[in-house]
């Protein structure tokens, strides 16, 4: 199946002995001219790249307190060394969070600290050479920015911040990553990651309405660009046609239908994803986020709701207010933005939905906490609501629910292995190996409780698991949307 070894699942999780250079060959395709230029980045390595990179690094430490404090504060205690799914799956020591940070830290120390200037060997400082730059490109694209290391660090050092900074430096000297930059280009040009134009999107949604009506006999609407709608839904474009994502979108529509909420999608902001975060570019992230504000103003909506997407929910929850706010033109009775899980959960609480969990009796379900949702956001008013609300929505929709091992869920959750802009075929080996810790925990509940359905609320997780489940002897269609479960359980025609 592959020209590399798929990690073996053990009876109990084991921390591997380090294997130096095990993943040194792993690098994503480098971005080229058509994708680099519109974003304002050079299309090949600039001549004075060392100078540019070092200056950019210094500049970033002045712009981001996180970067400055994180580069200074690490004591190399080793607490994070066994926490990264890519390290656990590959055994490459440069995939230990502290070692990944050190690739940048050793250069920072060399050029920006007294000790590194005078005693480089003593403090592990090195010159910025081409080898170091290549290491940056390779290993900062082996970090999914999932923040698991940060949870366990006594100082909260977040490798995501370091890898974002490194990727921005790489873009600045002309070695961007093709996958992310091409996709951001598509968002600017066409409106979404998949390059689905407005007309085609309208047609897709009309077809979807027909399908749902054929199946249920109820005319559930999937509206696009409806001015004056109450709710603007911004969702990952994978929801429009990819499996199993689309079952989630069908579910959102049924929820709004039964609750009698007037909603719409937007062709201008037909994408919740914001890959500007992955490449650490504030400007690009802001530009992508502004589309949502523009769409909300243009359509005159009162609320904004975000669909099932992990990093998009992080950008929406933590950053939108800063990047594209203030949202004082929206209804102050609802949080801005709101997650679709919060909407559905609230409707369930208020008895506005009629759910019959026995409709899902063929399923034995577990839930994968998506990294960005778990460690960078909240749902509801209580800290940790991001763990409780999705589970309550699932439990209202199914009768058989089982959690995976406690050290692999909630804020200890393992990334799916495809986050942070790594969901590309040219990183397949990394993705398969990085999925190992999650697959280990999943396999345990499959064995113990006959779990046959892995629910998630993230487009990247869904795509990643569809691809990687078979490597660990699970069926690819085992992964599904939480709102896919809601969609099955909801009894249309009984409430409206």
């Amino acid at each position, binding site marked *: 199946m592959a020209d590399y070894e798929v990690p073996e699942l053990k009876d109990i999780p084991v*921390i591997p002995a380090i294997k130096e250079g095990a993943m040194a060959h792993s690098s994503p395709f480098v971005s080229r001219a058509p994708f680099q230029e519109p974003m304002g980045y050079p299309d090949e390595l600039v001549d004075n790249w060392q100078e540019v990179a070092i200056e950019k690094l210094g500049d970033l430490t002045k712009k981001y307190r996180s970067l400055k404090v994180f580069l*200074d504060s690490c004591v190399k205690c080793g*607490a994070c*060394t066994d926490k990264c799914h890519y390290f656990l799956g590959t055994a490459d020591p440069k995939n230990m969070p502290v070692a990944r940070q050190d690739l940048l830290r050793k250069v920072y120390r060399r050029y920006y600290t007294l000790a590194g200037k005078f005693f480089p060997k003593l403090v592990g400082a090195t010159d910025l050479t081409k080898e170091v730059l290549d290491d940056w490109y390779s290993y900062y694209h082996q970090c999914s920015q999932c923040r698991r290391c*940060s949870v366990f660090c006594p100082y909260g050092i977040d490798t995501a911040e370091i890898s974002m900074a490194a990727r921005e430096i790489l873009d600045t000297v002309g070695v961007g990553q093709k996958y992310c930059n091409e996709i951001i280009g598509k968002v600017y040009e066409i409106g979404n990651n998949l390059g689905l134009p407005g007309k085609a999107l309208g047609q897709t949604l009309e077809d979807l309405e027909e399908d749902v009506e054929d199946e249920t006999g109820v005319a559930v609407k999937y509206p696009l660009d409806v001015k004056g709608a109450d709710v603007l839904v911004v969702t990952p474009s994978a929801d429009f046609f990819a499996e199993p994502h689309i079952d989630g979108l069908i579910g959102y529509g049924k929820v709004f239908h039964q609750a009698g909420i007037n909603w719409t999608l937007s062709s201008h902001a037909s994408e919740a994803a914001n890959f500007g975060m992955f490449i650490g570019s504030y400007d690009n992230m802001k530009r992508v986020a502004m589309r949502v504000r523009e769409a909300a103003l243009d359509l005159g909506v009162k609320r904004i709701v975000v669909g099932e997407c992990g990093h998009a929910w992080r950008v929406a929850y933590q950053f939108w207010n*800063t990047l594209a706010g203030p949202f004082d033109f929206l209804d102050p009775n609802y949080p801005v933005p709101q997650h679709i899980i919060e909407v559905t959960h609230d409707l369930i609480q208020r008895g506005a939905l009629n759910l019959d969990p026995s409709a899902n009796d063929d399923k034995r379900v577990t839930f994968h906490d998506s990294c960005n949702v778990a460690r960078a956001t909240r749902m509801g008013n209580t800290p940790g609501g991001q763990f409780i609300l999705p589970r309550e929505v699932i439990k209202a929709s199914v009768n058989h629910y089982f959690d995976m091992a406690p050290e692999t869920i909630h804020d200890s959750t393992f990334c799916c292995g495809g986050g942070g802009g790594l969901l590309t075929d040219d990183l397949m080996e990394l993705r398969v190996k990085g999925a190992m810790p999650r697959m280990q925990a999943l396999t345990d509940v499959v064995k113990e409780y006959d779990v046959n359905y892995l629910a998630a609320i993230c487009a990247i997780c869904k795509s990643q698991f569809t691809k990687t489940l078979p490597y660990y002897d699970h069926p690819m269609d085992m992964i599904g949307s939480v709102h896919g479960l809601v969609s099955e359980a909801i009894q249309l025609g009984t409430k409206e």
Partner: protein
Amino acid sequence: MSMLTLGYSVLFYFAAFVLFAGLAYRIYTYANTPSPLKIVVTPAPTTKAGVVYRMWREVVLFESLFRSSKWTWVFGWAFHFGMLLVLLRHLRYVLETPWTWVDMIQPFGIYAGFLMLLGLLGLWARRILVDRVRYISSPSDHLMLAMLVGITVTGLLMKFVSGTDVIAVKNFMLGLIYFDIQPMPEDLILLTHLGLVALLMIVFPYSKLLHAPGVFFSPTRVQVDDPRETRHVTPWAKDAN
């Protein structure tokens, strides 16, 4: 005044200057570097009081470290807590009339030296024995431990083996504080002890020991989880296009 007294006096004034000026500069820099985005690691407190409690657990109990590695936590906490007691006990050498509680903690502070040493040796053992920690260690990481072990061992030697003229030490220290230089006792172990302490003060603001002030400026820990309720805007981010 002997060369020795002069040398150690100059050394301590210099070390104190570097420590305080260096730390002040660091803290000033951290405080004045913007955090353009809310990046708190969740679940996180939604109020400032909650953040204070979170940081208290982090700084006093090393909560995150406890979750990640029990051995590192045991040794790390033993070292830091031991050091705290030892430092408080040492107040008697720089206060003309020590406060009552400083007198009361003397017995605990003395034995805390052993706790400190145990912690340091445990941390050092991990750095050598665990392949992952060995991989990430630089020479400076070992030297830092050697320096702290040196300080602890010389301190314990003076207390339990050779003894030293503590009255004279106190006079020297008070002399430094009141700019009335008094003779430095000529005791090799004491000189080593104080020399290493001065060295520690000097490297503090230029090394990983910055984790001490750094933790209070770590946005993933100290930010309030309220991005939807309160708009967070910093100067350069406002002007970004």
